[in-house]
């Protein structure tokens, strides 16, 4: 029953994954093939589409932001690895001090981390750390460890099999490895060469050689036999002795194990292995010494080639997964997913063109999409002050109700002030003209999207207006969801592209608040307001560690003469605008009772979640089905 449920789960998960992935492929296909969109667009004038497709190229970046807060799997996967390297390199630093600044050791550690990351990218080491050495705690007393707990020697009497002794690695093999491999070099065969290399579960008696007991598996050097939880061995491979390198490979997809000798595969030794086995070695006579390689050095056997084969197998399995009878539904569903994705991220022109060519209805009104698009553009170009103001105009109660969100936006605004990109400081800096007060022009009436879609003629004009609208700022807008009408809009002083251009220059100059003294003062004043807002929030709603940290990080920028190259400088990177943008967008959508995630992103997240669930339940195939592989 256990096996059945597991494999069933796998299949279901694959299907979900595949569905999500196909949708993504469809989008990236659209993105990579502008011809198709152009055809649709030829009905309209071309320039709005250009700006849309320019946004399109951002799409992965934008995609990566929801990952942080909501799609745990992707977020953790990406971020934790970064987080991991932090503490571990710190550790390495400490150790190097202890070990008299042994640089070589540090190098080895680095190489080990790199190799493990390359071999087992799907492993989340915070949940399931990889074995890196033998455990000084999980061994029999006759075992001695040295050389960073990688060398094992025997220190017992070695008179009878009762003197056998084993040691396990620090951690069990994570299922998310898919295929796991380690090597053991025989430094000396000692008196009789009674050495066993293999695997055992936690708690198996260490006063034994691997393979003799239940949940214990070993390949022995003296007779070349394999021991599968039994005191009597089966003829398996050649004997091994001093100088030989024996490798042990666990396939966590089909739960088998094979060994290698000096780089040659010896064939399957064990099948139906249980989960969570530890690399294990056992010795029995004096003088026996072996060294382990958990990835510290290149392996003698070409394990990556073996992994390539399994990656291909798993991916072929996913590609061939049957859709069944639902082929028609399938296409419609993918189209829906793509369309909803486009709408969610406010790619209005493309969304409309796509919806038209695939005969779908857009569920959100066009004006509303455009409003969101406008706000997102402001956030992504770093003009937070305008973004907040526009949000407050368009969605009056939103930020009032959601003070945390407002706080987050303001903190971002502060960061953008430091950056010199926020509108307020830019005005003061005098470099860019722009402020939201100078909107000449007259209000204009917009057709409702429903009406536009009714005839190609009006559709054309409709999109033509979309084009203009991109460059316009709406003024005195009413809640667009109520009637789909914008009360008016006026021409903006500069267009957003120009902003982007300016940003490039700013990065080169890198002066605090763009270098203007007035701007710095404004920034400091804003910081005080932010501080008092924080205190106010705490009084009203209790402590919020996330908010506290956010503010602390942002203020830390001022502690450095060159904030950009400081340890907290990453906040100034424009990529950090994306999570803010996405959170704000989601919040707006929620007020309209629309999903805060597009179904496509949801299914990508779900697929990723499935993979981490598979990793936890011991389905090794998750190692070779990374969602990222399908994203580009």
């Amino acid at each position, binding site marked *: 029953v256990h096996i059945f449920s597991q494999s069933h789960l796998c299949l279901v998960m694959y299907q979900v994954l595949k569905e999500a992935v196909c949708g993504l492929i469809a989008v990236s296909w659209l993105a990579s093939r502008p011809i198709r969109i152009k055809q649709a667009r030829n009905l309209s004038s071309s320039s709005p589409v250009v700006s849309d497709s320019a946004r399109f190229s951002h799409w992965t970046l934008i995609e990566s932001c929801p990952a942080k807060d909501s799609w745990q799997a992707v977020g953790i996967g990406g971020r934790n690895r970064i987080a991991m390297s932090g503490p571990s390199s710190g550790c390495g630093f400490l150790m190097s001090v202890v070990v008299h600044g042994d640089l070589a050791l540090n190098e080895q550690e680095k190489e080990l981390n790199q190799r493990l990351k390359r071999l087992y990218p799907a492993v989340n080491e915070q949940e399931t750390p990889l074995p890196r050495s033998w455990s000084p705690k999980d061994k029999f007393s006759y075992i001695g460890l040295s050389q960073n707990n990688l060398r094992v020697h025997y220190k017992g009497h070695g008179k009878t099999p009762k003197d056998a002794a084993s040691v396990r690695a620090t951690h069990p093999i994570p299922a998310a490895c898919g295929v796991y491999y380690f090597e053991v070099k025989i430094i000396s065969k000692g008196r009789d060469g009674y050495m066993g290399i293999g695997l055992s579960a936690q708690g198996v008696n260490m006063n034994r050689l691997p393979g003799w007991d239940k949940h214990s598996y070993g390949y022995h050097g003296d007779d070349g036999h394999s021991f599968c939880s039994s005191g009597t061995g089966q003829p398996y491979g050649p004997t091994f002795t001093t100088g030989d390198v024996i490798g042990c490979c666990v396939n966590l997809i089909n739960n088998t194990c094979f060994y290698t000798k000096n780089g*040659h595969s010896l064939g399957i030794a064990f099948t139906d292995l249980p989960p969570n086995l530890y690399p294990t070695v056992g010795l029995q006579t004096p003088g026996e010494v072996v060294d382990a390689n958990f990835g510290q050095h290149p392996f003698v056997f070409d394990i990556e*080639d073996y992994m390539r*084969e399994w*990656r291909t197998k798993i991916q072929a399995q996913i590609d061939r997964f049957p859709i069944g009878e639902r082929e028609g539904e399938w296409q419609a569903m993918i189209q829906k997913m793509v369309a909803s994705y486009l709408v969610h991220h406010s790619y209005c022109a493309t969304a409309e063109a796509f919806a038209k060519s695939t005969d779908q209805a857009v569920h959100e009104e066009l004006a509303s999409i455009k409003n969101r698009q406008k706000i997102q553009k402001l956030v992504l170009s770093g003009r937070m002050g305008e973004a907040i103001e526009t949000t407050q105009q368009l969605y009056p109660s939103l930020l009032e109700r959601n003070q945390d969100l407002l706080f987050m936006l303001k903190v971002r605004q502060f960061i953008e002030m430091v950056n010199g990109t926020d509108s307020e400081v830019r005005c003061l800096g005098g470099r860019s003209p722009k402020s939201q007060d100078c909107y000449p022009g007259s209000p204009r009436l917009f057709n409702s999207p429903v009406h536009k879609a009714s005839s190609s003629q009006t559709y054309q004009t409709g999109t033509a207006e979309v084009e203009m609208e991109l460059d316009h700022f709406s003024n005195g807008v009413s809640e667009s969801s109520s009637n789909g009408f914008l009360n008016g809009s006026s021409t903006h002083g500069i267009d957003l592209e120009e902003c982007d251009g300016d940003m490039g220059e700013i990065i080169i100059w890198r002066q605090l608040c763009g270098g203007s003294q007035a701007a710095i003062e404004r920034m400091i004043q804003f910081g005080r307001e932010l501080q008092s807002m924080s205190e106010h929030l705490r009084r009203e709603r209790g402590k919020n560690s996330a908010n506290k940290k956010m503010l602390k990080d942002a203020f830390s920028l001022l502690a450095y003469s060159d904030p950009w190259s400081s340890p907290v400088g990453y906040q100034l990177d424009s990529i950090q605008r994306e999570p803010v943008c996405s959170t704000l967008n989601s919040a707006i959508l929620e007020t309209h009772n629309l999903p805060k995630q597009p179904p496509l992103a949801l299914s990508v997240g779900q697929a990723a979640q499935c993979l981490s669930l598979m990793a936890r339940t011991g389905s090794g195939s998750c190692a070779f089905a990374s969602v990222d592989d399908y994203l580009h």
Partner: protein
Amino acid sequence: MACIEILFRISDKFTATSRHYVDRLFDPDPQNVLQGVIDMKNAVIGNNKQKANLIVLGAVPRLLYLLQQSSSSLELRTECAVVLGSLAMGTENNIKSLVDCHIIPALLQGLLCSDLIFIEACLRCLRTIFISPVTPVQLLYTDPTVIPHIMSLLSRSQHTQEYITQIFAHCCKTPEHQMVLFNHGAIQNIAPLLISPSYKVRMQALKCFSVLAYENAQVSMTLVNVLVDGEQLSQVFARMMQRDKPIEMQLTAAKCLTYMCRAGAIRTDDNCIILKTLPCLVRMCSKERLLEERVEGAETLAFLMEPDIELQRIASVTDHLVSMLADYFKYPSSVSAITDIKRLSKLRHTRDFCNQLDHDLKHAHELRQAAFKLYASLGSNDEDIRKKITETENMMDRIVSGLSESSIKVRLAAVRCLHSLSRSVQQLRTSFHDHAVWKPLMKLLQNAPDEVLVMASSTLCNLLLEFSPSKEPILESGVIELLCSLTQSDSPALRVNGIWALMNMAFQADQKVKVEIVRALGTEQLFRLLSDPDTNVLMKTLGLLRNLLSTRPHIDQIMSSHGKQIMQAVTLILEGEHSIEVKEQTLCILANIADGNTAKELIMTNDDMPQKIKYYMGHSNVKLQLAATFCISNLIWNEEDGSQERQDKLREMGFVDILHKLTQASDPSLCDRAKTAMQQYLA
């Protein structure tokens, strides 16, 4: 009756429409002809019946005529080539008819045209024709200008590359073909295609290299130095063996490297052989692979490691190869078994199942012979591996039944395997005897083609070794006549094996056996063998003589009946131009003769012989000196009748001085031998 009528009507209708297509080819208006050809093209696609009809109705000569006419429009000529290509896609009979209509020269001529589309159509059709087993490959090489021209077309397009490489891969069957292609720059022209963006082109280019390099040292040596995009060819091949590449590509790349290695262009201890090619080929033998792939994999692997014990040792422990091969025998071995299964399954199973069985049966022989070949190669040097093989489940039984299989390929492979295992003293003593392998072996020897005979007789040589328990029963089965007849064969290999077996048989044999050998062989044949052009034959014949002439009573008896001829033969060889080994062997025979009681006199009374011995005692080669001294020592041995006279006579001839000189020799054994001989005088 009604049914037949309907059938007739249908086929009539078919022929009628077919005739209509052909008729349109003769329309006076070229535009109508073109439309006719295009309609014909659409009509024949996937329709074998229609294709056969059109051929019978004579469409081919007309199409060829239109194709060759320079007055035809290029479009028409191209469409003709396309239709012909379509016709070629049908049955083998279609291909035969096309070839009979001289389509090949016509299409090759067409390649001279400058239009790429037309060239591609011609090449596509040529490709289809040349990859058929019924097409004589030689037709590609008849006109010497063809190959260089085709070579120059390789750069035209991805399609020309695909078709041309595929043609080459199928039409390179002999060393001559290899050299023609090689001399026209096949390697330089095809190597860049290995990194073509098209999989088909890469694959066909790879196949070209595998057929070019096969047993060809010159090609192989050139290949190792070729760079493709700055990378050595062996590295390119190694990359093509990666485990995520298609199986076909892995296998063919492994073949290329195997052939290069066997031709001496890559060392057997090179990592790309030991760590890449060998494991790749072992993988090809696994159960997961298709039967065809398993056969090719096993054969290639057998070829790769045949001469190298280290590779044999590695392969023998890789992925349980020895027991993996045992699975090769788990397919229905006889037709009757298949038909039984079919009859049973008809009730329950689908046709697919039967098709599967046919497929398996077809490959069952191939699988078995491939497994035998690989076992033979694995066990050719290492005793432990042989033991492992014979301990594999039912292995000896499988070999025994393989020896009497209907397929000659299987019999040959089985006997090769047996031969390889027969090099083991232990196996000769145990499993060979237990399974009475000599019985099917003897049966095989009765009536078999030469290649089987060579292997079988060679195995028999080993079974006739003195310590083999099979020797006795074989002797009793009347093998002597058979072996004697082998010595009269035209094939040197068979003559060697025949006489070798006799030599082994005569070693420490009974008087009766020896007499029987001499009688059966006849002195005439014996002397004919002593003048055999093959040194091996001569050596083994001398060996036989030496074995016959051992133990004193045997020596005397044989010398008394054949003394004169033997002495003549010995004289002849000692006087002739022969290698040191031959002369040494002959002197040993002479020494044996000198050991006889009465036989001694044949030497003493011979005017020449003592002089010859004297000459060889003073020879520059120690081995010959030793053998000659041994001979003298036997002649002057004390305790024998007439030793005094012989000593005196030889002293007169100056042998004592020579012996005295030899006691100073630097070679210790020669020195000892001379001293022992001198003691006979002193005693």
